[in-house]
C-alpha cells in the first residue's frame, strides 16, 4: 500500500469523528438558528418600522462586512473584557448564527420581493392576514428561487466551521492540521479533509436538488437540463 493511502486510511477515523462531533452539529445548529434570524431580518427590512429597519441594515452591514474570523475572535477573546465569558462551542455557534442570519436575510429579502405583488393581493382578497399570506402564498413561491443561493450559504458554512479552530473548537480541519503537525503531509491530509467535507456537502447538494424539484413542480418556467 502506498504511503499516502496508508496515511489517509489511518487518519480517516480521526477526521471523521471530529467532523461528526463538531462540524456537523455546529453546521446544523447554526444554519437552523441563522435561517430563522435571516427570515426575521429580511421581514423586518421589508415590512418593519424605520428604526428596526435601520438596526437590521446595520446588523447586515457589519456582519457581512467584517471577516468571520474576526467576529469569532471578538466573541471569544473580546467579550470576556466586558464580562461575558463564553465557552468555545457556544461562541462559535453565536458567530456562525449571526453570519448565516446576515447572508441569508439578503437572499430571503430578494426572493420575497421577487414574488409579484398580485400574489399578495390575491391572498389578501380571500381574507388572509399578513402572516397567512406570507406563510402560504409568498414563501412557497419565493422558495423556488431561494434554494440554490441558500444552499450556497449552507454549503459554505460547512467549510467555514473550520474557522472555529481559531477559537479552540477541535473540528475537522483542526484535526487534519494536528496530523499534519506530526506527518508533514499537509497536501494529503487536507485532501483527506476535503473529501470528508465533500461528502458532507454532497448530502446538502442532494437535498438541494430534491427541494428544487419539489418547489418547481408547478411549472410555468423553463424546462431545462439541470
Amino acid at each position, binding site marked *: 500500500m502506498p504511503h499516502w493511502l496508508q496515511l489517509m486510511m489511518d487518519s480517516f477515523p480521526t477526521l471523521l469523528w471530529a467532523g461528526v462531533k463538531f462540524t456537523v452539529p455546529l453546521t446544523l445548529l447554526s444554519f437552523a438558528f441563522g435561517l430563522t434570524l435571516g427570515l426575521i431580518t429580511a421581514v423586518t427590512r421589508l415590512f418593519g418600522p424605520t428604526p428596526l429597519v435601520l438596526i437590521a441594515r446595520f446588523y447586515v452591514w457589519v456582519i457581512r462586512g467584517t471577516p468571520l474570523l474576526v467576529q469569532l475572535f471578538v466573541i471569544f477573546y473580546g467579550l470576556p473584557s466586558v464580562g461575558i465569558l463564553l465557552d468555545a462551542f457556544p461562541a462559535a455557534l453565536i458567530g456562525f448564527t449571526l453570519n448565516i442570519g446576515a447572508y441569508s436575510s439578503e437572499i430571503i429579502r430578494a426572493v420575497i420581493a421577487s414574488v409579484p405583488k*398580485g*400574489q399578495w393581493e390575491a*391572498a*389578501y*382578497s*380571500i381574507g388572509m*392576514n399578513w402572516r397567512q399570506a406570507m406563510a*402560504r402564498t409568498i414563501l412557497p413561491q419565493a422558495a423556488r428561487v431561494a434554494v440554490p443561493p441558500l444552499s450556497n450559504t449552507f454549503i459554505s458554512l460547512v467549510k467555514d466551521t473550520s474557522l472555529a479552530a481559531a477559537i479552540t473548537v477541535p473540528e475537522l480541519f483542526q484535526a487534519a492540521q494536528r496530523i499534519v503537525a506530526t506527518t508533514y503531509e499537509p497536501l494529503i491530509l487536507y485532501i483527506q479533509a476535503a473529501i470528508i467535507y465533500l461528502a458532507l456537502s454532497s448530502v446538502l447538494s442532494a437535498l438541494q436538488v430534491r427541494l428544487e424539484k419539489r418547489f418547481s413542480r*408547478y411549472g410555468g418556467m423553463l424546462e431545462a437540463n439541470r
Partner: protein
Amino acid sequence: MIELSHIRKNFGDLQVIDDISLKVKEGSVTALVGPSGGGKSTLLRCINLLEIPTSGTIRLGEAVIEFAPGKKVGWDAVQKIRRQTGMVFQNFQLFPHRTALENVMEGLVTVLKWPREKADARARELLTKVGMAHKIDAWPSTLSGGQQQRVAIARALAMSPRVLLCDEPTSALDPELATEVVEVLSKLAAEGTTMVIATHDLRLASRVADHAVFLEAGKVVEQGAADRVFGAPEHERTRRFVSSISAAVQSGYGEGI
C-alpha cells in the same frame, strides 16, 4: 351596504379616481363600465383597499374608514373590510403553486379554518359549477385563459363574501360559458350577495346589473338604473359608448341572426 364618498386616488401626479361618490345597496348588482384606462379596476381595488385611496371615505357594512394624504390606515380596519369582500382579478392571479382545487380550497382552509374534507367538497362543487370538474388537479400554468378565469371565479365564490368585486369576470370566456357564469353570478346576486362588476361586456352588464356606472378618466359620467343607462343614456358620451356595440352588432354577425 357600500358607500364611497369623494374618493380620490392618485398615482404620483396622475389622478386616476377623481372625486367619486357611489352608493351600492345590499344585494344589488352594480356594473362599472367605461373605456379602457377609465379607472374601473382602480375603483374596485379601492373598495377592498388593495389600493389605499388618497382621500375620501369608504363605508362597507359597519366598517367606516376615512382617508387623507399622509394618514396611515390601521391594519385591523383594512382586514375587516377585506374579510367581507371577495375579488376576481382582471388577470386572475391564481396561486401558481397550488392546483385548481387547492386554489379554491385555500381560503376555506386557511382563513375560515374549515376541515379539509368539507373544503374539498365545497371546492369541487364550485369548480363543477364553472365547468372545471375535469381540471381539478391541474396546475394553473397548464390551464387555458378561460379555465384560469373560471378557477379565479370559483376561488372568490368559495369564501361566500358579502360583497363580490369582479374585474372583467368573463373577458376570457367564450359566449356560451360567459352566459353560464353570468347565470351563476345572477343567482348569487339573487341570494343577496352584493356585487360590483367592472366589465366591458355590456351584454353581461345589462343582463345582471341593477345599477350602472359609467366611468371615464376617473370621473362618473353617468349613473343610474342599468336599464336606463344602457337603454336610454342621458349623456352624449354614454350614448356614443353604448351605441358602439349596437353598431358592431349591426355591421357584424348581427346581420346573420
